[in-house]
Every structure is written in structure tokens, then in C-alpha cells.
């Protein structure tokens, strides 16, 4: 136990803890929207498309996260536009975007002279190297997203659930759908630091489906997903530190384990409840 407390004395570990916590809180809000609207696949496309931006930024000597953000936002709004026009097969368009992004990323990384030491950290995350500046960026984006969700909670839910009816009610549907696309894109890019491109989507879905074991109310899924996400991320972070494995993989593993245990618990509870009903 003393070992657990002793690593808290390191600034890098405290930064990592804060990043894990903030990322899971951010993912709780954005992920609930993603899962409710059933746009997990779209979000996967956005995530992988952003790798093209990372590769390009490397090639031109820019900040990789900036490149990822530009690619992610463009693909997110592009997909929203396609789905509103409804003229192209959306799933095929996403698949193309998904693989094209990865291909572009690899091409540019290989064209960049010299070795790219951080490439693995983008694919699998490297939370232990998160610095103060990145932490502040994460905090700022979390606060902005939280404020947006608090002020516009009802229109966000209504436009996700039944956009046509929302439009009839006079809600500017396009504004909310596009704004949410941008928020999703940026939230994903910011979270890449923590768990990496390959695993980031799990952070936006596993805590949500865990929460949905207990409630089917949008407003209640968010805090529950935040709770399970934060618990799993922190546990995963300690796990990754002590067993010396990549943080992203450790966090996702713990989140999944947590889901399975709770799923088992809920199934057992329902089983015994049914028994009670038979008796009475």
C-alpha cells in the first residue's frame, strides 16, 4: 500500500491521474450522446481519420494534436453533412474515411525523415508523459463541454432523439448536430493522449453501457458513466504502472472487466427477483 502512496509523490503520476480523471468525465458526457444516437461507428471513423492529421503534422513539423484535431473536425462535420443530405451510403463513406485516414497517416509518417518516436504513443496512448500544458487544455475543454451540456441539455437530447420533431418545435437542429459533431471530434482527439487511437472509443462506450445496466435515462447515464469511467481509469492507471504495460490497454481492460462483473451482478439480481415474484 505504501508503494501506492509513494508514486503519488511523483508529479508525472499526479498529472496522469488528473488526465485519466478528466478524460473519463469528458467521455462520460460525449460518450452518452454517441451511444444514445448509435453513432459509435461514426466516432470510430472520426478517430481513425485523425491519424491522417497526425502523420501530416509530423511531415510538416507541426503539433500532431493540431493536425489530428483538424482532420477529426473536418471528417465529423463531413459525415454529419452526408447523413443530413442522405444521398450517399453513410456506412460505406465512413469506412473509406476510416481507412484513408490511417493510410495517409502511415504514408506521411514514413515520408518524414528520421525516426518518429511518439508514433506508438498516439496509437496506444502514453498518459504518463502528459504535461501541465496538455492538462490545462484538457481541463479547459472539459469545462466548455460541461457548460454546453448544462445550458443546452434539452435541445441536445431532443435533436439527438427526434431531429424532425425538434425542428418543428423551432430548435435549430443543424446548429446542435454540427456543434455536437465538433465536440465529439475534439473530445476524441484530446483523449488520444490518454488511451491512444486504437482504444479511445472504448472510453466513450464501455462506461456508458455499464451505466445503462442501471438506467435508461439520458440525464442519469452521464453521472453513472462518469463514476464507472473514473473508477476504471484510475484502477487501470495503477495497474498499468505496477505491471509496466501501456496505460490505454490497462484502462480498457479494467473497464471491460468492470462491465462484465456488473453485468453478472445485474443478471443474478434479476434472476433472484424473478424467484421472489414466483413465491409471492
Amino acid at each position, binding site marked *: 500500500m505504501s508503494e501506492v502512496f509513494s508514486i503519488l509523490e511523483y508529479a508525472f503520476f499526479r498529472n496522469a491521474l488528473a488526465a485519466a480523471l478528466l478524460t473519463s468525465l469528458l467521455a462520460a458526457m460525449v460518450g452518452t450522446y454517441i451511444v*444514445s*444516437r*448509435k453513432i459509435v461507428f461514426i466516432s470510430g471513423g472520426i478517430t481513425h481519420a485523425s491519424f491522417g492529421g497526425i502523420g501530416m503534422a509530423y511531415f510538416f513539423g507541426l503539433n500532431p494534436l493540431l493536425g489530428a484535431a483538424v482532420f477529426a473536425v473536418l471528417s465529423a462535420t463531413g459525415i454529419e453533412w452526408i447523413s443530413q443530405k442522405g*444521398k450517399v451510403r453513410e456506412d460505406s463513406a465512413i469506412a473509406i474515411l476510416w481507412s484513408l485516414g490511417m493510410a495517409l497517416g502511415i504514408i506521411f509518417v514514413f515520408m518524414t525523415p528520421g525516426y518518429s518516436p511518439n508514433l506508438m504513443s498516439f496509437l496506444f496512448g502514453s498518459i504518463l508523459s502528459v504535461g501541465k500544458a496538455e492538462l490545462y487544455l484538457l481541463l479547459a475543454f472539459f469545462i466548455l463541454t460541461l457548460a454546453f*451540456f*448544462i*445550458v*443546452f*441539455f*434539452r*435541445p441536445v*437530447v*431532443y435533436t*439527438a*432523439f*427526434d431531429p*424532425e*420533431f*425538434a*425542428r*418543428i*418545435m*423551432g*430548435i435549430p437542429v443543424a446548429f446542435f448536430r454540427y456543434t455536437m459533431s465538433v465536440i465529439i471530434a475534439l473530445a476524441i482527439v484530446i483523449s488520444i493522449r490518454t488511451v491512444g487511437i486504437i482504444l479511445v472509443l472504448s472510453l466513450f462506450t464501455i462506461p456508458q453501457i455499464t451505466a*445503462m445496466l442501471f*438506467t*435508461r*435515462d*439520458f*440525464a442519469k*447515464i452521464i453521472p453513472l458513466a462518469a463514476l464507472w469511467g473514473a473508477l476504471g481509469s484510475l484502477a487501470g492507471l495503477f495497474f498499468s504502472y505496477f505491471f509496466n504495460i501501456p496505460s490505454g490497454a490497462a484502462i480498457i481492460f479494467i473497464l471491460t472487466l468492470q462491465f462484465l462483473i456488473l453485468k453478472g451482478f445485474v443478471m443474478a439480481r434479476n434472476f433472484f427477483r424473478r424467484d421472489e415474484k414466483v413465491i409471492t
Partner: protein
Amino acid sequence: MSKPLAILENVTTGYFSDIVLKNVDLEIFPNDFIGVIGPNGGGKTTMIKVLLGILPLFKGKVTFPQGKPNMGYLPQISQIDKSFPITVRDLVGSGLKTERSWFPHLSAKQKKQVNQMLDEAGLMSLASKPIGELSGGQTQKAFLCRALINHPQLLILDEPNTFVDKGFEQELYRWLKELNKEMAILLVSHDIGTISPMVKTIACVNGTLHYHPSNQLTEDLLKVYNCPVDIIAHGPVPHRVLKDH
């Protein structure tokens, strides 16, 4: 006779460049109860979208002589994602059009309004349930509550008798008869047999619109109106739509 609530004049519209409705004229008066029938793909739902103002017109115009009326809308339930995590109470609340639509919670007055509506419909015990746990009839009722909570002058229902049992259908029609005393109703159905006893007039929509000023319609007239719906088959018999000749 009072002024009409809504007038469709020579309306032509569709999606992208496909024309679905051509030169449609219709007047809706305050106490009308119009049954809108026609084959699938004939433009029934498209006409509703024109009335609701969410589909641009290629030609013609829609006017509201008494000012834009409050409209209540019940969409086809098959268009709705029933697994979306929203409770019955929140669903009904989403039909409220008020000053506080930008804030996360409903005002106390709005909450009372929602509760009253749920009480009236007998859905109070289901208020906190997600819509995915409701039966077909309960779902229609919940969406009808969402349409009614704003006290509409014109209630538009798109196929409210799908996914429901006979018992609920009877209850629904009794309810609509009562509501018709206070508002105009436009009831879309592909099944003329069930709706004709309750509606006052019938509009046949199949690319164009033919208005029939009574609820009695013979098969011959339907032919004249070029509105191939099956008059006999309804209830448990699988519905059959005759093909155009």
C-alpha cells in the same frame, strides 16, 4: 363558417428532384376531422411535412388565415428509435414550446403541465420508464401526449394505429372524438376501413389529392379518385394495397 386554419394551394413538392405531390389543394377548418388515405408512397407523409413547414415547396403556397396555428404532431412510430434512453416524462416534456427551451430543466409550471397530461392519458405510473419498455399502445399514447401538450389547434397523426391492439384502437378513437371538439384533426392511415366511421371527410392522396366531403366512400369512387386502397381488408387480415393499373 369560420376562416380556415390552413390552406394548401396548388402545392407541388418532393425530395431532391423527385416530385411526390402535384398541384394539391386542401382547406382545413377548425373542427375538421379529415382522414387522409392513399397507397404507400402516395405522398401522405409528404403532405404532412408541407403543413408542418419542414419541407420546401417546388410550387404553390401554404397559408394560415388565422395566423400560424399551434400544431401537434405524432410521427410514424416506425421512424422513432425506441431504444433511445429517454423517459416517458421527458418525451412528453419535449413537446412543450415555451420560453425556457434553452435550459436543462423544465420549470415547475411545465412539470405540472406534463404531469397533468400524463394523468389524463393514464400514463402516470409509467412516467419514469424509458420508452423502450412500453407496449405498442402505450408508446402511441405517450407520443400523442407529446403532440397534445401544447394545446394544438391542429392535430396531425401519421398512422397512429400501427403496432397497437384492437382494444387500444377503440380507446384511441374515442379519445380523438373528444379532442375533435376542441381542435381540427388530420388522421393519416393506409387503412380506410378502420378510420372511415370516425372521420368527417376523406382526402385521397396519391400523387395528387382528391377531397371527398363525407366519410362514405365506395370502391368506384376510389377508382375515380385514382386512390387504390383496399376497402374490405382491415383488422387482423394482412393489409393489401392494390396496384395501379
